[in-house]
């Protein structure tokens, strides 16, 4: 589904990503795990087309994405701070992508209705983002991403600013949405808890390159193969 080949990103002399390669299959929920400053968010920006790599290739469904602008990539992103459109209601936020693609009003209404039901936001349809809670905002962001019909959804630490209880609820909801919609996801986090709850596969990033690829529960194993770490 997506393949990154020998990706490099430099800002002047500073190398942020180096010789980074990874491969995510269709329908997979992959986790990009690593400490702050490891280059996770930059990698998402490159995948989304918001940043250009210095070297290497981004391949989506067999096509090189080098010269494809963000709006034509079939990739969408759920941002850490939601990035909802503050002047639009919840309904209009979710409908944004459908309207931007020129879909018929009735189709838009039906699709948005389905997504609001799926994410439990029917009661908030007419509200603007400034009156929603953090958890509700994130659910709108999920619904909006699903409405874009993108083949790849990027998640940039979407649960970072939420408290523990809310986080647990949204993780379960995201897992359920993934089970229902089977989208391909690349999810950035530095939380073992989120990686374990959501991921099918984990790419552990360190200093701009993939340190290891493992299953979520193997995150707790030591690198030297001597069993689980404390």
């Amino acid at each position, binding site marked *: 589904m997506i393949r990154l080949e020998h990706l490099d990103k430099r800002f002047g002399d500073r190398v942020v990503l180096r010789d980074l390669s990874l491969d995510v299959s269709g329908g997979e929920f992959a986790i990009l795990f690593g400490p702050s400053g490891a280059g996770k968010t930059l990698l998402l920006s490159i995948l989304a*087309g918001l940043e250009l790599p210095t070297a290497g290739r981004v391949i989506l469904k067999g096509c090189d994405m080098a010269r494809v602008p963000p709006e034509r990539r079939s990739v969408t992103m759920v941002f850490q701070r939601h*990035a909802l459109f503050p*002047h639009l209601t919840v309904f209009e936020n979710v409908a944004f992508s459908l309207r*931007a693609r020129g879909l018929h009003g009735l189709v838009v209404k039906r699709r948005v209705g389905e997504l609001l039901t799926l994410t439990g936001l029917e009661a908030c349809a007419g509200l603007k983002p400034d009156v929603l809670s953090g958890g509700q905002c994130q659910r709108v962001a999920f619904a909006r991403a699903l409405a874009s019909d*993108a083949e790849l959804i990027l998640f940039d630490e979407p649960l970072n600013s939420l408290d523990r209880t809310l986080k647990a609820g949204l993780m379960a909801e995201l897992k359920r949405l993934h089970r229902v919609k089977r989208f391909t996801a690349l999810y950035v986090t530095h939380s073992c808890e989120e990686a374990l709850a959501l991921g099918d596969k984990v790419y552990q990033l360190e200093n701009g390159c993939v340190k290891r690829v493992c299953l979520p529960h193997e995150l707790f194993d030591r690198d030297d193969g001597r069993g689980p770490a404390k």
Partner: protein
Amino acid sequence: MNRLFKALCVIVTVLLSLFVAVALCNVFMGSPTGLFHAMRDRALRPVMEVSLVTSLLAAGLAMLLGTPVAYVLARRPFFGKAAVETLLDLPVALPPMVAGLALLVLVSPTSPFGHVLNGFGIHLIFTKAGIVLAQLFVALPFYIRAVRSAITSIPPSIPAAAALLRATEAYTFFHVILPLSREGIISGFVMCWARALGEFGATAMVAGCIPGVTETLPIAIYTRATSGDLAFAGAAAFCLALVSFVTLIGLRLSFRDGDERRKA
């Protein structure tokens, strides 16, 4: 020392406010009877009409031309951007007479550009169109500045999110950028209009002061005051000051409402 500093700040603020208030009182309350008669003077109506129509046209044109320019300056990096920004800001710092002379030379029938315009039947010297041109030239930077600042204040993740929801740049501009810059557009329009309404130097250079044709309120104030008709000049000044005052109050009230909504 701290007390003295605070007291000095308060005294300077009070004195400055008093100075502005007294200066304006002379316009608003000069001679009520004379002012009333002058306001009813039939000669004032065409002057007001010329001023209002040309300044609104100039502000409308500024909105039409300035919005895409402000968008490009706020969102796109390009070679020579600083030079373009300085150039577009220049009319703010330029003495209006210099701006007027530059425009006069540019559009006079003897210049190549003026010759081309004349070929198309467009005459800007001593016409209302010339007034609009002069007002636009001087007031456009105010509009561009306000809108550029409003667009710059939109977090970059918002247009990025729109692009990742498959919206083209044009769709994002009309459905995201413009609505989110609404306050900047309104305040830019009002500032630009107020500047155009009060424009004197450049307008006088390009359009002259033909009574009933190219005589605007500021020009009427100058010509009538220098010819001794202080009542008419006072009435024209009263109109200008009233418009500025009402505009400023309206702008402050509308933005205060917006601020309160955001705080709530």
